[in-house]
């Protein structure tokens, strides 16, 4: 696999899947806080 394709793969997947995971974690934490209060 070429380096540019590998870098681009990491960039796009990181942005889309990483974005999803970060948002999910934030939602879980916030839900935890809300149910604790």
């Amino acid at each position: 696999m070429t380096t540019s394709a590998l870098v681009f793969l990491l960039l796009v997947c990181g942005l889309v899947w990483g974005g999803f995971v970060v948002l999910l974690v934030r939602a879980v934490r916030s839900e935890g806080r809300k149910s604790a209060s």
Partner: protein
Amino acid sequence: MSAKEEFASRWGLILATLGMAVGTGNIWRFPRIVASNGGGSFLVAWVVFLLIWSVPLMMVEFAFGKRTRKGTVGAFAQLVGGKWAWMGGWVALCATAIMFYYSVVAGWCLRYLVAAVGGRVLTDSQGVWEGFTGSWQPAAFHLLAMGLGVAVVLAGVSGIERVAKVLIPSLFVLVLLLTVRAVTLPGAVRGLEFLFTPDWAALGSVNIWLQALTQNAWDTGAGWGLILTYAIYMRQREDVPLNAALIGFGNNSVSLLAGIMVLCTVFAINPAARDEIVGAGNEGLTFIWMPRLFAEMPGGRFFMVFFFLALSFAALTSLISMIELAARNLIDAGMRRRQAVLLVGAAGLVFGLPSARSLAFLHNQDWVWGVGLMLSGLFFALAARSFGLEKLRSEDLNGEGCDLPVPRVWSFIVGVVVPIEAVTLMVWWLWESRSWDPEGWLHPFRPETTGTVLLQFAIALTALVLYNRWRQRRQEGVR
């Protein structure tokens, strides 16, 4: 509203809305469109439009549903005035017209799932497809799909939530398994290279940007009225912006997995036929080529079952949301849920039959109401603008329960950028369609022409505006 008509938890709402957003378009359209639009460069434009079309419009829909607790017609009437209720009617009409043929598509997926489970490795997939579509079976499986959807919606929001909690995590696992299988095939790396090699010069092509915007408009469900419908049942202290962003990113995550899965499979098993596969259309890729590719893959029989199971789950959860949208508008008009859902189911069954019998009719409806969705997106943006973008942002997005404060730029995106995008898309698609049938592009009775869109839009819009006027006069008379 009774306690029953509320999502029991945030996760129920998120999974149901993800189920709405993730449909067949993620699995059968996205990989084709990426492959035929330059791979990597398309992905850049696709991510940009996730942020300046899908997520902002999803926030508008969530805010409308949560604020009004009414279906599309009631929400538009309450937020922008009864005179404009026909806009909500248009949104409902588009989603319902799509439901009519989408049930047929869900039926195809179920039929192929049965065939895959039964061990029929579809080597003569072309013949099987032609035999299937030329028979009574699409109508029978359309009945089955509609029956399953109606059964879930009859149970109310709790039924939708229960089903989503099972089907959506299963769908994610299935797509993940298929992707892992695909990337571990010998030669799959060529698919990854194709998908992720950026061609920066291609980003100068207007077509790539418009295709990326179209993919976002068609496969995230933003601007369809379906998110608004589910938002009716969200809890009062529920967040809007974080949920909207989560659903947008979750939907596009599935698309990306599907793109990797399909393209790695194609490049590993039959790279020579790449252009033919990509150019075979949604049905050609899914029902003719994928079975052929699975037939040549080690363990392909099992993975074919997973593939059609994932596709069936994606189709059914989207169909459920469309049934709920139509039923909710009838419930707002005074019907009981049971009556409304059964009426929608019966209408869906009858009006879906022409699409079950004729692929040309299905393609016509897909084309007309696909363009109609862009108008729906425009109506949402205009309604939000008319209601007051800053008011919506401060009270509904950044108000009670907010987990992700929305900056002021959101108002600019919804008020200015989204309308420009919607109008550009509609004009571009209508202009493009002239080249599909240069002789008869204005012909109103050919499947995919500019003329058929204009005729059906004119009939629908005239009927909606006249009905709304009549209803308003009657209400004024009663007062």
